[in-house]
């Protein structure tokens, strides 16, 4: 569904990705783990075309999107939950969700909204609350809900567990599991390697802009190198 072929990405003169190849197949959950500054966010943003890859190819559903505009890519069936949530803090929960379905018809929006409320009953309770006044966990739910409003085929999550309590993280990961059951392909970036690999069909390990390891989630969890570096030994 999503393919990156030998992608290089630069920030000015500095190369942040040195030839990365990743594939996410339809219906999978694929996790990408790596230390701070490894280039995980850069990789996701390259998929979104902001910044664009300097060489290599990005394909989504068989179509090359390497040089497409961000706005076009984001309307083609990919949704992203950006790092740090980035909800519209002055807008209410409901209005945030409506922004997520910006390009859909009203009836589609209404349907997706009900669906999101089913996944996150907590959001329904807080429908008219300003997003900025909600807790971090609630904001993360909202960010995921907003991404789902466009009815994406694939959802990309950038560190959804960042700064959340273990119980909330567990809830979020449960929801991610549910999304797969609904047929949404998931590409997950995490520092929280244990849970991310446990849930994932396959996983990639990114180190300073290069893919170091690539295997099934189970195998990566059992890999001694991964255990040493990302699972605390």
């Amino acid at each position, binding site marked *: 569904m999503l393919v990156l072929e030998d992608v290089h990405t630069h920030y000015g003169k500095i190369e942040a990705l040195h030839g990365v190849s990743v594939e996410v197949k339809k219906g999978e959950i694929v996790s990408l783990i790596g230390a701070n500054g490894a280039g995980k966010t850069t990789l996701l943003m390259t998929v*979104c075309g902001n910044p664009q890859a300097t060489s290599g190819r990005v394909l989504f559903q068989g179509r090359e999107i390497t040089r497409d505009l961000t706005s076009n890519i984001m309307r083609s069936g990919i949704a992203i939950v950006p790092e740090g949530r980035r909800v519209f803090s002055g*807008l209410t929960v409901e*209005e945030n969700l409506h*922004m997520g379905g*910006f390009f859909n018809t*009203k*009836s589609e929006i209404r349907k997706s909204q009900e669906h999101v409320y089913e996944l996150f009953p907590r959001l329904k309770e807080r429908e008219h609350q300003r997003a900025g006044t909600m807790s971090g966990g609630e904001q993360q739910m909202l960010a995921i809900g907003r991404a789902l409003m466009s009815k994406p085929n694939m959802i990309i999550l950038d560190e959804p567990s960042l700064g959340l309590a273990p119980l909330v993280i567990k809830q979020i990961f449960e929801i991610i599991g549910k999304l797969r059951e609904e047929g949404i392909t998931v590409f997950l970036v995490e520092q929280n390697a244990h849970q991310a690999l446990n849930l994932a069909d396959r996983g990639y390990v990114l180190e300073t802009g290069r893919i170091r390891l690539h295997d099934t989630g189970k195998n990566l969890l059992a890999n001694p190198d991964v255990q040493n570096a990302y699972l605390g030994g």
Partner: protein
Amino acid sequence: MAAHNLKHALFCAFITLIISYPILGFDLTSRGTTVVLEGVNTTTSIGVLAAVIIVFLFQYFRDSVMGSLRQLPAINPLANREPMEQSKRLKLESILLTLMIIGALIWPFIASRGAVDLATLVLIYIMLALGLNVVVGLAGLLDLGYVAFYAVGAYTFALLSQYYGISFWFALPIGAGLAALFGLVLGFPVLRLRGDYLAIVTLGFGEIIRILLNNMTSLTGGPNGIGGIPDPTLFGMEFGRRVKEEGNTSFHETFGIAYSGEHKVIFLYLIALVLAVITAIAIRRLMRMPVGRAWEALREDEIAAKSLGLSRTAVKLSAFTIGAFFAGFAGTVFASKQGFISPESFVFLESAIILAIVVLGGMGSQMGVILAAIAVTILPELAREFSEYRMLIFGAAMVLMMVWRPQGLMPMRRIHIELKRQE
């Protein structure tokens, strides 16, 4: 504590003295071929001394003065009230608006000619402020060169009428359209800029337009401006004593009433009123439409808005263009009202005043902006004797507002949009 205050107060008083005395206390007068320095009359010296004492006293008792200033919000009965319920507030607002419009319709028939003229100016400022409100209040783009689009509207009409004899009604859409086009073109290069940088570049654009108008003497008449701009007509009826254009009739003859100069003033006022109402309604509509929500989303979080597939270019340009369009509207009316325009009318101060109206009114709120436009235009007129101190009063009002009601007269409460349940 007191000792510290005393030292500080003495220091401030001293600074006041050494700043104000050399500037105000001496006079350069020419005696024959030489220029001599003279001490000025005693009143000024006493004034300077009084200022020094006031500064000293204020600084010495600063804590208690600021303390009581902080009490001000408590005096304001509206300050800490719970916000009204959405539906109730909307109803109240529409009742208030209707009353205002009815009042505005009756106004020209009871007020003096000068008052009607002033009210026309207020309406022009309302149009301008509502337009700038889209750019600054809703889209969050700080535009300090807004007056440029006002100038484009005004000059479009002036030039079209001078060279091609085009009437007000044809020039109105052309002026607004051209201003919008300028907004679009000037918007492109500044799209990537944010905050302070955007403010400075737009400030530059505003000045460029004014200087161009000033220097293209052969076309615009330069600093001499353009005069003889015609008044609007009503279905081919002119409001002058004699008909100027062939094929037109005169208003007072058609209706068989005596000629009066007031007809024209009232007619212009009514046109401005209708256009201001159209502006308010159109922008209100836009705010509820997806494009309005996109402006807000982009203002709140650009990255998040982009991640949802919104195009930054399209959203920002639309705000710029629509804001400029209404400035063009206002400019055309202004040119017609004055009958004469020159670059002098479009200096940076105008941009600053319009921006002040938007800020005073509470960014994004239409009612607030309308009230602020009325206050800012009328107050200096009421206080004619103080007209030299207009800017001073303005500054003081701004400072007081920041203390008393930092969110503006009527802070924006966003319209809540409900999806219709049936479809």
